[in-house]
């Protein structure tokens, strides 16, 4: 017993060590690549900073601005300086917000995290439940309805769903707010949880609607496989109820793969949140990403790239870890089924 425990701890430690090394390598590569990318952009950072005031700001001031952001230095020197700062945990200063990039990301990530976590949990639970239902009772009407839902929505653009929900619930029925994450007129400290949830409702729904389909389809496939297996036939023959079978066999066998798949969908959820935040004017990290790209805020864009890469890397690592936990053989099968 004890030796088995230590073996599994050792295995986990090895996994952790390998992943940490991997993360360090990936981060070096991502930093270098993204720096090269933004350096070669045709967007001139000084001009992007000045924005609409181009005619009000003379040439001397432009030189001063370039000096302030270190833009008068050669790219190699800038990279070394930037990378040196990154190692010390300093991501630089955002040009749009005139605030340290880390604090810009921190503030906005909290907002997005609430939204993404709610959507992630909601879509996971609903998707899994729908998948089980349509798998256990497949070929019945309920399964057909769920299939149709997944068929239509698995590949609908999330921002379109968001717009349609906005038109219907906010503009026509006026049940939900049109934009923002907090109600107008209340200082940040006095906003209640109910008000926040009310503002999160529609963005969260649009984000979940899409990811539900993925989880549901995957779970259904698994469930049908399990339901047709010999040991379920045996259990049925023994007179177990459908509910008991689901509880004892199906849930146990299909939950972990579903969670694992759901972890690796963090990438898509984050992508969806960028689009959804744009539709609902929800001031999270996604909106900051778009602003940084459109208005040429290079430090912020790089900071967000680094931050979100770490975030997604952990999601992928969690998925990988669960694969190894489930079954070494499954690992290969899952990958084949992924597409």
């Amino acid at each position, binding site marked *: 017993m004890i030796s088995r425990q230590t073996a599994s701890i050792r295995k986990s430690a090895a996994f952790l060590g390998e992943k940490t090394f991997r993360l360090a390598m990936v981060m070096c590569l*991502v930093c270098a690549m993204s720096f090269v990318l933004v350096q070669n952009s045709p967007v001139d950072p000084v001009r992007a900073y000045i924005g609409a005031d181009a005619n009000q700001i003379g040439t001397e001031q432009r030189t001063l601005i370039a000096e302030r952001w270190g833009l008068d230095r050669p790219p190699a020197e800038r990279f070394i300086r930037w990378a040196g700062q990154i190692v010390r945990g300093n991501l630089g200063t955002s040009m749009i917000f005139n605030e340290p990039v880390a604090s810009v990301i921190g503030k906005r990530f909290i907002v997005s995290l609430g939204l993404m976590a709610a959507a992630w949990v909601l879509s996971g639970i609903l998707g899994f439940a729908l998948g089980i239902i349509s798998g256990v009772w497949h070929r019945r009407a309920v399964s057909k309805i769920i299939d149709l839902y997944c068929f239509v929505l698995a590949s*609908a*653009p999330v921002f379109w769903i968001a*717009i349609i929900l906005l038109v219907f619930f906010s503009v026509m029925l006026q049940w939900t707010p049109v934009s923002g994450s907090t109600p107008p007129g209340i200082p940040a400290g006095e906003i209640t949880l109910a008000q926040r949830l009310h503002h999160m409702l529609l963005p969260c729904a649009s984000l979940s609607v899409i990811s539900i389909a993925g989880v549901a389809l995957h779970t259904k496939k698994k469930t049908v496989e399990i339901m047709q297996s010999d040991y379920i036939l045996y259990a049925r023959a023994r007179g177990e109820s459908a509910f008991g079978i689901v509880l004892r066999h199906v849930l146990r066998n299909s939950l972990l793969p579903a969670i694992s798949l759901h972890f690796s969908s963090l990438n898509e959820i984050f992508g969806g949140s960028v689009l959804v935040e744009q539709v609902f004017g929800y001031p999270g990290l996604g909106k900051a990403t778009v602003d940084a790209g459109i208005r040429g805020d290079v430090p912020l864009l790089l900071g967000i790239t680094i931050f979100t890469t770490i975030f997604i890397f952990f999601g992928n690592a969690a998925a990988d870890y669960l694969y190894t936990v489930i079954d070494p053989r499954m690992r290969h099968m899952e990958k084949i089924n992924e597409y």
Partner: protein
Amino acid sequence: MNIRLVSLPNPRQKSAASITACLILLCSLFILNAMIDETGLGTDLGRRYLAPGHGSILGTDWLGRDMFTRITKGLCMSFHIGIMSAIGSSLIAVIMGLAAAVFGKKVDAIVALLIDAFLSVPHIVLLILVSFTLGGGFKGIVIAVCVSHWSRLARIIRAEILQLKGSDYIMMSYRLGRSRRWIMAHHMLPHVSSQFLIGLILMFPHAILHAAGLSFLGFGMTPDRPCIGVLLSESMRHISTGYWWLALFPGAALVALVKIFDVIGENASRMLNPRTKQE
């Protein structure tokens, strides 16, 4: 989907029928596109905000442009972007996957690292970064989608070939004195080609959706050329004034196009995949 079709007498025929139906739908889009001239794209201030059915099938926008024309042209634009970027990224994927499997450990390690890196950067961030570098436009979108989508397929192809390398008949072939290159050309490529084709078709929906999303955010196409993402982002300005048709139809059309490729891809993979094609 999978299960429903298994119950039918001949799944292969059924798949072939689905694919044919989808191809016919696609062709009709092109025929339609060729039949419609560009006059609907011009502004006509006398015909603004026409609701669907009132002298225009899908209505007109705030400049009097015909939405039916714009959506048809926009779909074709999406199709072009999709096909270019799907081919591009599948090619990158195959080259990377093959290189990793064939050129030894060092190359394999580099490719594995690249795959890891590209899988870890969120798609949307990578898309924004690349189109920021290229300054947007058609070229920008296609390259951005290529760069961000190859990694998943490359991982599958690499795994497939690694598995293949360990298989008996390759080992045998190697022991019989065949060169690496010969084995690659005669055993591996044919094996990988079906994976490539399925990967290519299944890449389509992703490519189209991501391209539309990128345009929606303002990084892609300029508004003077119709493109579904741009149409939807423009519709955002007219939601509370009640012009719902500007938002509803472009999105629905895009879903239909994506769905066509989903169905083609699913059925093609069922027919081509070595594991299920005997079903």
